[in-house]
Every structure is written in C-alpha cells, then in structure tokens.
C-alpha cells in the first residue's frame, strides 16, 4: 500500500514537473551564462545566480524561479541588446524573478508579457526606459522592487489585470512613477513614487483598482486619475504634515530669533 503511495507521488511529480524533482542550477559554477541555465532548467527548477555583472538579455518562457544569491546590489544584469528588455518573462505562469539589478535597456529592465501568477520581487530596475513593465499579464505579484531613474516610467501596466503592486519604489523617473494604463482590478498598495518629473501615480482608462497607502511626494502631480471609474483611492500621502508644520515653526523661530537678537544687541550697545 505504502509503495503504491510512493509510486503515485513520483508519477504526479513527473507529470506536473514540480515537487521533489525540482533542481537548483548554479550560475556561474555549473552554467557560464544565466540564459544557458534557464534553457537547461525544467519547470519548477530554480536558477541561482551568484554575484557578478552579466551582460545578457534573459528570456524566461517556462515556470522557473530565477533568484540571485547575494541580492540586487551584487547581481547585475545589463542588457546586451539594448533594444530588448534585460529580463523578459514571456507566456508562462508561476515564474519568479527575485533579487537582481536589471539596467541599461532601451526597452524595460524587467518585462512581463502574457504572464500570469508570477512574482517579481526585490529587484532594482534602474536606468532603463521602463523599469518594470507588464503587458497583457494578470494575477502577478510585483513586490519590494526599486524602479528608479528610468527614462519614462518606473512601473508600467498595460492591459494587465488583477495584479498586486506592493511596497515598490518608483522614484526620480523622468516621466511617471507608476503608470496604470487600460488595466483593471489591480491592487496598488504601500508604494512610494517620489520626485518623478511628472506624475507620481497615474491611472489611465483603468477601472476597479485599489490604490491605498501609497506615498507620492514632490512630483509635478501626485496622483492623476483620467478616464477611469470605480477605483478605490484612500490613505495615500501626497502632502505630509511636516511639509506644512515645519515652515510655520521655522518662521515662528525666525520671529523669536529677531526678538532675541534685538534685545541682545540693545544690551551690548546700551541702546534703549
């Protein structure tokens, strides 16, 4: 009976391609290039990338996990072909991209096209044209990423629905921090979009999204909603109290300083 159970589990693992058979593929120890490891990986495998600067365009088209060992500051993917994304996830579900710096692309640092139920977390997508871009991608989790100093948008969603965009930074981009375009029913929560040249967060023809507890400071416009309906927008910070209280306190201190200086100088010079 027990043997039958083991065989069943083994067969299920084989059929699904996951579970006990999942392997870790190491770069650069076992594979010289990350793309080589991705090609060799089976669904459910994890490609673990050690520190280094890799000049490649990665293309993930199966449900694998791509993770860095030492985090985004030490694991950099520079786009070899600048017109292509540094990391592209295409036509799959259940993929994971975690812990990389993706930079130098005239397209996107990290792009998801026709992807569902995947995770992009803890990456830096800086100095591209788009930081992280989702096209026709649904039910993905984009969490804890940095998408700063990109030429257009930090995080861009186009025709992508039911995604969770949480705890990301999209700062100092030359256009918009977060741009949600023709995308519905997404949850945009606890993100930071500061110091962008134009809008911090933009909803464009997008409905039924939840925009809560985000911070958008010192952009040209903080949160812009256009041609969109039924969005829940609450608890976002666009002008914290300190921006109002501090100047008032300082002017008050200025008046006090004047009075102190005046009386002190009167004492020193013996003026009445």
């Amino acid at each position, binding site marked *: 009976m027990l043997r039958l159970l083991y065989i069943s589990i083994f067969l299920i693992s084989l059929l699904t391609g996951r579970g006990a058979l999942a392997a870790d593929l190491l770069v650069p120890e076992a594979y010289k290039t990350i793309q080589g490891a991705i090609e060799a990986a089976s669904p459910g495998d994890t490609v673990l990338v050690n520190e280094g600067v890799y000049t490649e365009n990665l293309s993930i088209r199966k449900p694998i996990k791509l993770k860095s060992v030492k985090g985004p500051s030490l694991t950099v993917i520079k786009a070899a072909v600048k017109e292509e994304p540094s990391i592209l996830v295409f036509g799959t579900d259940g993929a994971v991209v975690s812990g990389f710096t993706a930079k130098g692309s005239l397209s996107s640092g990290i792009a998801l096209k026709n992807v569902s139920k995947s995770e992009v977390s803890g990456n830096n997508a800086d100095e591209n044209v788009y930081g992280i871009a989702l096209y026709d991608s649904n039910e993905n989790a984009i969490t804890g990423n940095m998408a700063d100093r990109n030429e257009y948008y930090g995080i861009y969603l186009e025709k992508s629905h039911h995604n969770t965009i949480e705890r990301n930074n999209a700062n100092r981009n030359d256009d918009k921090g977060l741009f949600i375009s023709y995308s519905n029913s997404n949850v945009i929560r606890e993100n930071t979009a500061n110091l962008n040249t134009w809008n911090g967060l933009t909803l464009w023809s997008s409905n039924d999204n939840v925009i809560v507890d985000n911070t958008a400071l010192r952009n040209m416009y903080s949160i812009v909603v256009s041609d969109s309906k039924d969005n829940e927008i609450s608890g976002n910070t666009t002008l914290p109290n300190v921006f109002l209280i501090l*100047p008032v306190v300082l002017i008050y201190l200025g008046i006090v*300083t004047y009075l102190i*200086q005046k009386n002190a100088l009167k004492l020193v010079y013996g003026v009445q």
Partner: protein
Amino acid sequence: MQRILKMLGVFSTASIVLASFGLVLATSSFISGLQLVKSASMVERKIHRFNGFTALTLYVILAILAFWYEGFGFLRLLGWSSGLCVFLLKILIVRSKKRRAFKYLSWLGGTLILVWLYMVYIHIPV
C-alpha cells in the same frame, strides 16, 4: 512624543538643516528690514545685515551642495541663479542708496522669504 521625534527625524540631512537656518535668518532679517523702513536704527541695521549675509552664504553653500550631488543641469542652474539674482538685486538696490528704489525692497524681502520657503520644501527628505 513619537510624532515629535518623527518630525525631528526630518533633520537627517545637512541640506535641510542649512535650509531651515536660512529660513529662520531670512525671517529675522525681513522683520528687521521692515523696522528699518520706519527708523534707521543701528541695532536693526546690524541684525538685518548679519542675518541677510549669513542667509546668502547658506544659499551659496546649498547651491554648491546641489551641484555637487546632483550635477549640473540647465533647469538647476537657472533655478539657483534666479534665487541668487534676487539676493544680488536686493543688495544692489540697498547699496545704490536711491531712496526711490527703497520702496521695492520689502517686495524683494518677501520674495526672499518665498525663496527660503521653497528651499525648505525641496530639501525635506522624502
């Protein structure tokens, strides 16, 4: 108490500290300048000059820091130069000793307060 500590946490960079001092001094200088219009008191003049020139020095230091950390750029250069022009124009009018031009000084002083308010605004760390 936590809110006050959080508020004090704003002063985490040298730039915001300098900008805050600048606004305090500019306010004090502005009030003494208004008093000088009424009567040429020596005490008011000393306060006005000392605070004014210290504020100008802080402005120049902030400008240098901005160019050092953020690099040169046309808009950045234009912005800082415009602020500096307000300072210089004010000094120029005072030095010219033309009484007719003095009526514009309070406007320039007000503009400098606005400049410092903007300085504080842009330097609050986010």
